[in-house]
């Protein structure tokens, strides 16, 4: 397998605190890679560094061997590094359909058009149709985003990222705050993502992590604490001690509080 997205000795300091401390991580092509760790371990900071929301203090980030460490966030998206957010970041006044159509038009190269209507483009509509079906939003296409049920908003959050034709998809706690009954729908859509898209998943829900991921990286205090395949990590007593033991209750409470 070849590496798509990699970091080398990545460091991010906020004052004296190293939120990301010498992290070297490799996401393989078609990976199902989970990033776990107790609250405050620096998981979201790492995602922010990978996507260009934050600039690292030192270290490099490469995509297919090309250095993207100082590339602007929106240009990384165009190269296929796309994320979702732990707290929904949606266009509240738009509808699911227009949100997706906009994202699709960006990646079909028509988003700078100002004379033709967004809806006049059959290629955009066709791609939206597939996305809406895939993410089970077909029955709410015209509802304003702010009025959607929370589970649907989480699905739209992922759908908008997927509309950007990701090569690497970074999912930041996709079921955070979603009531138990609505989680299954999200699990299923994540499971059904195409195999050629590399996925890096941050999640507190251990069922999802161990069912979905093949590789697991454990972050503690900003540094890589352990890394390996699911079976190894789930048996590792050190991981159980730092994460599963103390983090279990913490994590669940944290995930709930973020909703």
């Amino acid at each position, binding site marked *: 397998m070849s590496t798509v997205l990699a970091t080398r000795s990545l460091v991010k300091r906020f004052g004296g605190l190293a939120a990301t401390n010498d992290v070297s991580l490799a996401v393989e092509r078609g990976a199902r890679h989970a990033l776990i760790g107790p609250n405050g371990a620096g998981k979201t900071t790492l995602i922010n560094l990978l996507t260009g929301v934050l600039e690292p203090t030192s270290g490099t980030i490469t995509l297919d061997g090309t250095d993207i460490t100082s590339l602007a966030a929106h240009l990384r998206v165009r190269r296929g590094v796309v994320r979702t957010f732990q707290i929904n970041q949606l266009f509240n006044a738009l509808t699911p359909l227009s949100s997706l159509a906009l994202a699709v038009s960006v990646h079909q190269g028509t988003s700078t*058009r100002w004379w033709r*209507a967004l809806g006049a483009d059959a290629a955009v509509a066709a791609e939206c149709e*597939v996305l809406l079906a895939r993410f089970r939003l077909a029955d709410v296409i015209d509802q304003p985003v702010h009025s959607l049920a929370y589970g649907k908003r989480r699905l739209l959050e992922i759908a908008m990222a997927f509309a950007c034709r990701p090569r690497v998809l970074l999912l930041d706690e996709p079921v955070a705050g979603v009531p138990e009954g609505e989680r299954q729908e999200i699990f299923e859509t994540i499971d059904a993502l195409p195999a050629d898209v590399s996925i890096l998943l941050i999640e507190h829900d251990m069922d999802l992590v161990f069912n979905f991921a093949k590789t697991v990286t454990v972050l503690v205090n900003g540094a890589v604490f352990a890394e390996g395949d699911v079976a190894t990590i789930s048996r590792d007593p050190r991981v159980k001690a730092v994460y599963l033991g103390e983090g279990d209750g913490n994590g669940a409470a944290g995930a709930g509080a973020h909703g």
Partner: protein
Amino acid sequence: MSDTPVAGASPLPPPASASASAAAASSPVARSLRGYSRWRWWELVLFAALPLSWLLLPGQALLLNEIAIVALFAISLDLILGYAGIVSLGHAAFFGFGAYTAALFAKNVMPDPIVGLAVAIAASAALGLATSVLILRGSDLTRLMVTLGVASILYELANKLDWLTGGADGLQGVVMGPLTVPFTTLKGFDFDLSGRTAYAYTLVVLAIVLFVSRRLVHSPFGTSLQALRDNRLRAASIGLSVPLRLVAVYTYAGAIAGAAGALLAQTTGFASLDVFDFHRSAEVLLVLVVGGTGYLYGGIFGAIVFKLLHDLIAAWTPQYWNFWLGLFLVVLVLVGRERFVRPWTWFRVQRKQ
């Protein structure tokens, strides 16, 4: 799009290739997407009302001309405020710049109104482009201060450069040439005292701007403005360059505000410091608050209500116009515009959903 098949039982079969696009054109999704830019009946009524107002109210041309200019100015503000979420307390900077450019051009270069209008639009667009860098960074509060500052600077410049602008006296006696219709051999129309030529001229510009802006707001570009208004972080995260789009819409809005100012100077034959004044920037904001933001026509409805209210109250009690305007705004905001235009709902008991 990846050609990996959609897993699970999806209700809609994915179109596998371009040939399926034709079939997809009649799907509910395609129809909904086209529906977003469909002409609504009231839009057609409004466009039809523009020439009708000229035909049916010949005696009111001066007032209607004033309303149409304010409407044009407010549409410009709506594009940056209602669509892109850029707050401004100094939008008169563009209005005044367009007014002075048109007046100076007529006085010093040539009196043709259409050429003058084009020059004023180009100059205001350039001003928009140049000042757009100031509104890219910072918070809403910094944008309020920066826009206010730019308008103040231009006001003082127009005041100090009296050899060019006439200073506090303004540019008096701007004589406009007759209005000729481009690409025809029609004889020119003179701007007369009744204001009918002026109003027809303003109406044509207003209709063109409305039509072009309507295309713009329904386009992918226009949708992206609403997206970055709602959430800049996410707009960047779907691959949009937020700063470039803000620069583009600010430049376009500057051009339209400049056109409004130019129309005022050309149709009244006069430009004074008043066009840069703070009260212009504040008034256009009030007009937009009255008419509503983010649907393009708020400027028109706002301008009509605002000007008619002004004339009505001023005729009744000229001293206390501001008091009644203030009261009206407080009531409007407290009741909410949606309910305000539906008086029959005011005293209905609110039912919980």
